[in-house]
Structure formats: structure tokens, C-alpha cells
């Protein structure tokens, strides 16, 4: 406790300068060099940090940044983030495959599909903004009737949408005879990632091969980078300050002239757009969608990433997303294997995944509530809070 209260005094100007650029620089350097490091160290490549996991990490970074805008900036608890992920993924699946085979000859716009293929085949780079838009519209539609509610109810309604939508898509094999989503079979295959706009330079191929994780990683990393910039610029701008004001005190914010509904809807829209982009990339990267991917667990895990890393701090969120995704997809298994190999045990670590996950969450909340990399603002207000709390306890008889 003493350390926290002393922190503002210790921060002298030069340290602050380092602190200011440390997190962005670390993110950029590590993010850019990861594929090189990974492919050159066999232990990473095969076991500890495969590129497949890194691609997933980056996708989850995008989701986490999106949710951070809704939860971290605007303070609206959203438990149904999976809805936007779903919209993004299905938009990509609809527009980049022969799913609508009724359309024959198919529509082709710079697509990686064979020219004779039926259905809608549009370039990923055109689908991307469409997916973002679809998700954003969904976000606004979900948000509009519910934003008047107080936080807990809002959480519940978003959760409701997050439950309904996957069920609609699961049962959507024949809605009045129309096949909306192909039900539990999902939509596959989806066209490969096309790169015509960059392939003339000779850096990349026209179409990204299924096994080419390096290029895919750089694509999603670029999208993450874009969203980091968007997040930071928005936070420092008028809209961002309005979000923070609403988060801190809604009534005070509205009295100061912040239009509540519009500001909140923007948060939903922007946050959802990130979910849509992430979803579209996820669909293309995996080459298809399966409705079982979209469950409540996903919403909760992304929320945990935001909170674990440090709410409202972009780099905290990135760290949280990378750590949890890695633990989920690679870490738990490999740590288990390592323990088994060293001590000759036969512990099935993945069986204890949720146990460990749960304990980490609980312990984080109890002992480091603001996350691994807390936002500067949170750190300050926390220090003040603790000072106030102390005043009461010091005077009270033990």
C-alpha cells in the first residue's frame, strides 16, 4: 500500500519519458520480431511459441482492444462481445465463399477463388470494412435500447444477445427454407487471404497459403497496430474524454453537456467494429466458421484479458490478451508436458485449465485489481482511494 501512495512522488521527469515510450516501443519491437525469433529457435517453433498461437494471440489482441473501448473507456460492462465476433466471422464467410451457390455465375471482386466458382467472392480487403460496419451496426442496434439501463442490467442484456445470436445461427439451417448459416456444420471452406494489392512488389504471393503463418501474422499485426493507433487517438480526443467522463460519473458528465446516448453508442460501435474485423480475419485465417466457436466463454475470456492486463491501458490489454491466449492454446499443455518430463508424473495439465484460470482471476482481483499494467489514471485514483480508506482505519480502535 505504501508503495502505491509513494509512486507519484518518485516519478521524476526523465523516468516519465522512458515510461512513456517503454510500452509502445516494447510492443512494436516484440510484435515485429516475433516471427523471426520464433522460426529461428526450434524450441519455440515446435513447442513453446508456435506461430499458429501467435496469430491467435494477435486476433485476441484485436478483440481485447475493441472490448477495452466499451468496458475500459466507457465503463459499459459488455458480456456479449461474442456477438460482434460472430457477425464479423459470418460476414466474411458469406462474402468470401461459395455458400450462396444460388448466385451462379458468382460475383467476383479481386477474389482468391477460382473464377468459375459460384457465390459471392469478394476480396478480403473489401470484406474487412464491410465486416466492421456490420458488427458496428449490430453493436448500435444492441446498444440503443439498452444503454439507458444501469450497468448490471446492461451486462445482462448484452449477455442475452450473446446467447441468442449463436443459437439463431446454430438453428439457422433452414429459416423458412432459407439457409442462413448452415447450422452446426458451419461454413467452409472460405477463400484464402488475397494479397493482390501488395503482390506486385514481390514481397508476398497473390494468395496466402494455408501454412503461411508468417504473412498472416503480419497482416493481423498490422490490423492490431491500426487499432492501437485508433484507440490511443480516440482516448486523447474529444470522444475519448467524453467516454472517461461517463465512466467516472454519468450524471456529472451529462450535466457538463456530454450527450450520453450518442457517446455510449459510439463506444459500442467502435468496440464492435474491432470485434467484426477480428472475426472476419479469424474466419479467413481458419478457412471457415463453426458456430461452436461462439459461446459465452469467449466473451468472458476476452473480458478477463482486458481486466488482467489493465483496464483502459492499451498496452496492458495487449499483454493480457497475449498471456491468456498463449496459456489457453499452448502454455498450459507445454507446462504440463515439461512438468511431466521433469518429474516423471502424468498430470494432464489441460484438465486443470479452468481451475488455474479461475484462481488467477480471483487472486488478481484480490491483490492487483488494476491489472498487470494499470492505466496511469487508475493508479492515481487508486492511491487517493487508499489514502481515504486509511483515514478511517487509523482512527478506529483496532
Amino acid at each position: 500500500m505504501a508503495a502505491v501512495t509513494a509512486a507519484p512522488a518518485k516519478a521524476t521527469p526523465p523516468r516519465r519519458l522512458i515510461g512513456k515510450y517503454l510500452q509502445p516501443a516494447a510492443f512494436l519491437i516484440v510484435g515485429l520480431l516475433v516471427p523471426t525469433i520464433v522460426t529461428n529457435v526450434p524450441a519455440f517453433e515446435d513447442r513453446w511459441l508456435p506461430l499458429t498461437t501467435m496469430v491467435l494471440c494477435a486476433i485476441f489482441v484485436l478483440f481485447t482492444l475493441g472490448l477495452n473501448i466499451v468496458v475500459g473507456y466507457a465503463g459499459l460492462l459488455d458480456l456479449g462481445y461474442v456477438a460482434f465476433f460472430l457477425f464479423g466471422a459470418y460476414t466474411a464467410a458469406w462474402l468470401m465463399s461459395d455458400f450462396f451457390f444460388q448466385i451462379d455465375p458468382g460475383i467476383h471482386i479481386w477474389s482468391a477463388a477460382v473464377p468459375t466458382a459460384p457465390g459471392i467472392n469478394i476480396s478480403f480487403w473489401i470484406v474487412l470494412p464491410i465486416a466492421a460496419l456490420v458488427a458496428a451496426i449490430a453493436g448500435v442496434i444492441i446498444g440503443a435500447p439498452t444503454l439507458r439501463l444501469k450497468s448490471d442490467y446492461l451486462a445482462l442484456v448484452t449477455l442475452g444477445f450473446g446467447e441468442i445470436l449463436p443459437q439463431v445461427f446454430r438453428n439457422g439451417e433452414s429459416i423458412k427454407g432459407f439457409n442462413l448459416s448452415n447450422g452446426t456444420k458451419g461454413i467452409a471452406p472460405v477463400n484464402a487471404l488475397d494479397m493482390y494489392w501488395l503482390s506486385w512488389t514481390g514481397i508476398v504471393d497473390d494468395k496466402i497459403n494455408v501454412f503461411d503463418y508468417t504473412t498472416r501474422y503480419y497482416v493481423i499485426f498490422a490490423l492490431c497496430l491500426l487499432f492501437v493507433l485508433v484507440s490511443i487517438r480516440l482516448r486523447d480526443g474529444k470522444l475519448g474524454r467524453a467516454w472517461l467522463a461517463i465512466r467516472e460519473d454519468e450524471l456529472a458528465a451529462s450535466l457538463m453537456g456530454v450527450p450520453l446516448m450518442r457517446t455510449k453508442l459510439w463506444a459500442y460501435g467502435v468496440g464492435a467494429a474491432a470485434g467484426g474485423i477480428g472475426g472476419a480475419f479469424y474466419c479467413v485465417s481458419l478457412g471457415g466458421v463453426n458456430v461452436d466457436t461462439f459461446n459465452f466463454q469467449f466473451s468472458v475470456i476476452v473480458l478477463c484479458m482486458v481486466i488482467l492486463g489493465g483496464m483502459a491501458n492499451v498496452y496492458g490489454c495487449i499483454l493480457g490478451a497475449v498471456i491468456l491466449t498463449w496459456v489457453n492454446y499452448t502454455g498450459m499443455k507445454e507446462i504440463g508436458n515439461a512438468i511431466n518430463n521433469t518429474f516423471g508424473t502424468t498430470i494432464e495439465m489441460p484438465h486443470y485449465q479452468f481451475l488455474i484460470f479461475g484462481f488467477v482471476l480471483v487472486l488478481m482481483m484480490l491483490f492487483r485489481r488494476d491489472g498487470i499494467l494499470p492505466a496511469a489514471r487508475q493508479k492515481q485514483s487508486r492511491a487517493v482511494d487508499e489514502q481515504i480508506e486509511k483515514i478511517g482505519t487509523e482512527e478506529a480502535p483496532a
Partner: protein
Amino acid sequence: MSSTTQAVRAGGREWNATNITGSALLVLVAAWVLWNFIDAPTQTLQVMILGLCNGALYALIALGYTLVYGIIELINFAHGDLFMLGSIFAAVMIADVFGQETSNPAGWLAFAITFPLAMAFCGSINVAVDQLAYRRLRKAPKLAPLITAVGVSFIFQNIGILWNGSAPKSRNSVLPSGGLNIGAISIPWTYLFTLAITVPLLMLLTWIVQKTRQGKAMRATAQDPDASRLMGINTNRTIAFTFALGGAMAGAAAIMYVQTNGTTRYDAGFQLGLIAFTAAVLGGVGNLTGAVLGGLLIGLIQGLNDGAPHGLGQEWSQSVVFTILILLMVFRPAGILGSQTMEKV
């Protein structure tokens, strides 16, 4: 807790667009029920009664949510999973410890002994979690205890997997099979029994909250914890007691669930927990009678949707429940019995 207060809605019923749309929806639902009833009276009545009995289970779980929410404004995400642990506990006690598989006097005795044990089991786990985790977060922002509850829910689920396996296990009921036949309608004894247990439990709970000293302390703490402390109420003990009560209700629901549904599964808590929380909100969260009413109502609607001739069928069950929830939130955010003025914002 921010001290903002929402504008209190003017008394009396205003006829605005929201109200009219809400009422129109209600009329539509009533018409749909009537349509089912006219088309297939016995089938509709049958599913309604079965739905009602399922609703009694939801009500018991919803009580746990509503009690805890009422006192510390925490959506206890782990509550559904607590119920799940209780159901495994009850099944293991009856089948493995007492070795009862069929309906006979020994089986009934095992059930009678396990019943309070399951309640105590769930109650004490709930209290333990509260004292170990939530208690330290009483003054924290609302999100912190909520995330903690999510973490606890993960822990419970994992324990459930380790205890029960990742596949559902079928369990034999020790209560009499068959049921009561009224004309063409038959109601299984287990369902009737569930109903017969819920009602006294609810009455007991209402009595505790409304008439006893402890209940008074609970109500006071719910209204203003700081002021209650100044009045000499041990708020921490009161909150722990509330968790114990909520847990005990989940335990009772758990053993009845095993008897009526005949399975234990590690993810049962998730589905039922969501439905039960919807029930709690439907009735006006923090309101005991409301929770029971909400539970019964959701059971009824679910029963009709799943089984009635013009229902959408089981695969839409969850969607129907949550659509109701969302419509309710839009048209009547305080729930059926909740009042706008009582709401602490």
C-alpha cells in the same frame, strides 16, 4: 458506489409508446397461449404443469441470486455452478455413500438425510467463498467482485469436471416413479414433490427475512451498509448469513434437479444459472417473491415453447428466454414486482 439517482418515474401509469408496445406484446403472448390451448388443451395443460415444476427449480436458484444481489449488489456468477456442485454432491451421497438406486424406504431415508446435507454443503461453500474472496472486495468498484465471481465459477466448473467427468452421468431417482393422473394429464411425483418443497422453503425464507432479527439486519444492510454498521449490526456476519441462505436454496434445488432430471453434468450450472438469473431479474432483482414468480413464469414459458403444439421447440428455448429478458429490460427495467423508487443507483 456513485450517488447518482435516476429520475423517479411519475406515479400512475402513463400511456406512452413504450407502454402501449409493451402491453401489445403481452396481449400477443396471451393470444398465443390461448391458441395453443384451444388447439390441444390436454397437451398444453400438461406442458404448462411440467413447466411450472421446472420453474420451481429455477425459482429456488433465482432466490440465491436475488438474495445476494439484494444485499451487496453482486451478480453472483458462481451461483449456477454452486448449484451444479450441489447436484453432484447429492447424487454421489445418495448413490455412492448410501448406495441407493431405487425407490424404496431406504432410498427415501437416504434422500431425507441428503436433503439437508446438500443444503448445508452449498451454503457453507457459498459462505467460504464470500469470506475468502468477496469480503475483501466490498469497497472495490463493482467490476472487481463480478470478475472474482467469474473466476470462482471457473474453479467450480473445473471441480465439477474432475468430480463428475466431462460427460453427463445419468443418476437414478430414489423417489417414486409414475405420477398423478388427472384425466389425460399426468404429473410425475418428483415434479409434484419439487413444488411441494419449494413453497414451504419460500415461506420459511420470507419469514426469516421479514420477521426475524437476522432478517431485519439483512434488510438494513441492503439499504445502507455503513449506517447499519453504525447501528451496531455486524454487517459482515449478516452478509455471510445471506450467502448461506442463498447457497442452501441452491442445494435444495440441486437435489431436486437430480431427482427430476436424472443427470449430473458439469455445465448444468451455466445454463440453469443464466435462466435463474433471468428469472430473478424478471421478478425484480432483490425481491424474493418476484424471484419465485419470475422462476415459475420462465418455467411456464419454456414449457410451452418446448412442448406446446405451436411452440418453437426446444432448440429455441434459450433464445425465447433471453428475448423475454431483453424485451422486459426495454419495457419494464425494474421487473414485474420491482419498483422504480426502491432502486439504488
